[in-house]
């Protein structure tokens, strides 16, 4: 069976192994579909977007819709799963299959979808409250298991849909409706949290940086297993400017530390600054002119142990100064449930009334009459 789209974002072709769904055969038998390149329009639903004007979510949606054709998977084979919060509405705007679940549980719903159907590409869109507060448990366990999911976490450091309470990523001291004297909670660093949960792919990008966002999604789409992407997303109503240091023109040039695998870590308007290992063994920000280019740390996302990625995650405790973005970690480890799904599917093909009869008659039986 052919879907007319040769490339698969995760390199898997399991359609022929029995996961075809009703109706599909009819289509492929009647005609070999002409290879029509997919476009952004193929991924845009007819629903009116209802985020606040100026919300960073619009930028991410547009980028994702533009990027999806590149993955080469037809929209019929893609499932978006979301939870509750502003990011949760994302699913209605993608013309794919979609589930809008309850608060925090999207990774669990998506695990059910992905482990049943390795032929599908499953994407989770979540927010800092959804993924890190009420749904923290499901997030870490999806990452630990390495379920084949792409998880996009829109981090705006605030609860938007409930109108402006502090979130688990809000900075200490954040004044909100629920913290009139300033938040006393220490915030999560989502990248560090994902690394701590042994995620096999961890990245960070910025909502309005179309090029970097697409590049990061590309890497995520190519990853087998769970790809976790934190997206700094501006909430212009309740937390405007939270990420200005790495997002606003004039500051981002100075503060974005763009991680590139295999390259020395440099940043700044003229790439004049960098990251080097200091005398005490810790990573520190340096002027390249002072230490020399050869002293700069070289980024390696493929290291099996996450220590370098973890250090980089802690280079900036908050996105108010120089902050790494890009892919922190990208390693291979066994993907949860994929082989088993194939094994089960082929087992199922051989199971019928006879096997059921045998099962019921297994163990000690006796005959009367």
């Amino acid at each position, binding site marked *: 069976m052919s879907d007319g789209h040769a490339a698969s974002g995760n390199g898997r072709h399991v359609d022929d192994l029995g996961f075809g769904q009703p109706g*599909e055969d009819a289509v492929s038998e009647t005609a070999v579909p002409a290879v029509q390149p997919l476009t952004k329009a193929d991924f845009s639903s007819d629903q009116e977007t209802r985020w606040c004007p100026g919300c960073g979510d619009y930028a991410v949606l547009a980028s994702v819709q533009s990027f999806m054709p590149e993955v080469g998977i037809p929209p019929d084979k893609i499932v978006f799963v979301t939870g509750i919060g502003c990011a949760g509405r994302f699913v209605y705007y993608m013309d794919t299959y979609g589930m809008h679940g309850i608060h925090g549980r999207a990774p*669990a719903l998506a695990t*059910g979808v992905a482990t049943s159907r390795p032929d599908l590409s499953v994407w989770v869109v979540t927010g800092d409250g959804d993924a890190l507060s009420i749904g923290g448990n499901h997030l870490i366990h999806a990452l630990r298991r390495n379920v084949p999911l792409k998880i996009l976490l829109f981090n705006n450091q605030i609860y938007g849909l409930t109108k402006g309470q502090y979130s688990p990523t809000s900075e200490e001291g954040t004044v909100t409706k629920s913290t009139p004297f300033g938040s006393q909670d220490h915030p999560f660093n989502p990248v560090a949290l994902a690394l701590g949960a042994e995620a096999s792919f961890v990245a960070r990008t910025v909502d309005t940086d179309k090029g970097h966002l697409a590049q990061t999604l590309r890497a995520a789409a190519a990853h087998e297993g769970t790809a976790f992407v934190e997206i700094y997303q501006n909430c212009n109503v309740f937390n405007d400017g939270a990420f200005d240091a790495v997002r606003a023109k004039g500051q981002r040039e100075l503060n974005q530390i763009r991680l590139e695998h295999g390259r020395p870590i440099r940043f700044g308007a003229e790439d004049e600054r960098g990251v080097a290992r200091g005398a005490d063994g810790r990573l520190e920000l340096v002027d390249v002119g002072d230490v020399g280019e050869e002293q700069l740390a070289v980024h390696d996302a493929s290291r099996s142990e996450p220590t370098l990625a973890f250090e980089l995650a802690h280079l900036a405790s908050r996105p108010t100064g120089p902050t790494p973005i890009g892919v922190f970690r990208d390693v291979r480890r066994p993907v949860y449930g994929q082989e088993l799904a194939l094994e089960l599917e082929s087992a199922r093909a051989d199971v019928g009334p006879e096997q059921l009869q045998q099962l019921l008659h297994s163990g000690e*039986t006796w005959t009367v009459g």
Partner: protein
Amino acid sequence: MWSASPVAEKTVEKIDRVVVRFAGDSGDGMQLTGSRFTDATALVGNDLATLPDFPAEIRAPAGTPHGVSAFQIHFASRDILTPGDNPNVLVAMNPAALITNLPAVEKGGTVVLNEDGFSKHNLKKAGYETDPLEDGTLDAYQAFRVPMTSMTVRATEGIDGITSRDAARSKNLFALGLVSFMYGRPTEPSVGWIEKKFAGDVPVRDANLAAFRAGYNFGETAELLAVTYEVDPAPAAPGIYRNVNGTQALAYGLIAAGVQSGLGLFYASYPITPASEVLHALSRHRKLGVRTIQAEDEIAAVNMALGASFAGQLGVTATSGPGMDLKSETIGLAVAMELPMVVINVQRAGPSTGMPTKTEAADLLAALYGRHGESPLPVVAPRTPSDCFHAAIEAARIAVEHRTPVILLSDTFLANSSEPWKLPDVASLPAIEPGFATGPNSGDAFLPYLRDDRLARPWAVPGTPGLRHRIGGLEKEDGTGNISYQPVNHDHMTRLRAERIARVEVPDLEVDDPDGASLLVLGWGSSYGAIQGAARRVRREQGISVATAHLRHLNPLPRNVGEVLRAYDRVLVPEMNMGQLVKILRAQYLVDCESYTKVDGLPIFTRDVIEQIVARMGRQTNGSGA
């Protein structure tokens, strides 16, 4: 009290039924002893029912009453319905087992004691101030003291690699051998089982075989057992039988539902007593295409099942009381999404952690109403261990064909107790039709909430070309499935969700009323055996007319329930809760049903129901009532 000395003569006495309870420390292997005895009994052809009773603690402090584990079996030469009320025979391995179980034993009953377990230390731990073997505690019983531990140790002397400490652990098989002799059980099933089970550990195998044989031979030669008993096979319908407990039957039912529907069975759950046993049972069946996941928590488990359902599987999750509380939000989501899902609740005594290993049926109202908003769904309850098989298929059928979550209410008693099961012919099982959507349903368009004549929406699984759609917990516009806050639409959808569940076809309630009674006893769930048994006995022994009926479908209720209730002067509803079904019946049918409630963590016994019937009908004789 008798003492042991070898004799040759034995009298065989025929009896038609007996209840034996094995009781010991939770480390003594009483569950194993009981289940081996059960298998041998099944092979004799007796009808039987069993009930394990064990503490939640895996190894509570040895020798204490809260560490006592027991296994009761009722077997007979006729059709029986329950594991029995009062044991005729108690095997007590230590003082704690005696102190906790003796009160249940019938007066004049037989008590077999492991004399070696009755040390001063153990007597004290059990709470005996004086020795029950000497102080008259056992005067009203036929008590036999058997030094099981020391005889087991002696029997295993000379087996290489077995210390006396190891040997003492085989004393449960000595007890098994002894009781097997007393009731003429064949030795082959137990010997065969020991040989197979311990094939990899020759010393342990030999020690267990020696202990079993020693117990059996002791029974044969000891004077104390002047009488042995014979229980003839029970008349049973021709067929192939096996013994099954509610957990196994439920697991088989789910697998069968997968086969009957052609759907992959996807089962996700989080460990919880007693529902974990279903996970254990299903996780062995990969070769039948069964997917099991041990989720990170109860909420994840139900969400995984729902995600799998969306992806075209038969999504199932199971839990017990506290887990239901956690799953309820997601069950509501499934109601809104109108997707198939089976949620099994093996009920246990609550509230909160309650008594994890004790039974109760107090989650009925929670199943029906325990979600926010108007959130109706079908509820099905099995009535016997083997009925769990058919109830699972029925729950799956309704879920799949009506696109709805279904709650199956089992309980700890059903899950753990066992009975002979006449294996069904697989060809007789109902077909389940998933009827996936394969193409547009409205011109060229696909409307995910367009309904068929059952008011069920199409099930269009991801990957189906052209049927992309989004579903979720926000209120949907009927037909299009678009998000809608329109007052008219919400009113319409709320009534529609109620109506579509009300329309689920359910067979009429059958009434068993052989002689025109004025009293109806109406039950649901695991009280079936006790109610049927009580009705038979009061009819036979006291000439009381009584009608019985049992509800399998708690939502929707059978259409004739009101008519049935109104046909009787009095309706008695025994329940293992504070009267939950009664509330519904009164509210829905305005019939003043009477409640009998039992909430002690034990099943409803036959004698409980007899007492209730006699209290109401005792003065009436057959024919003068109605």
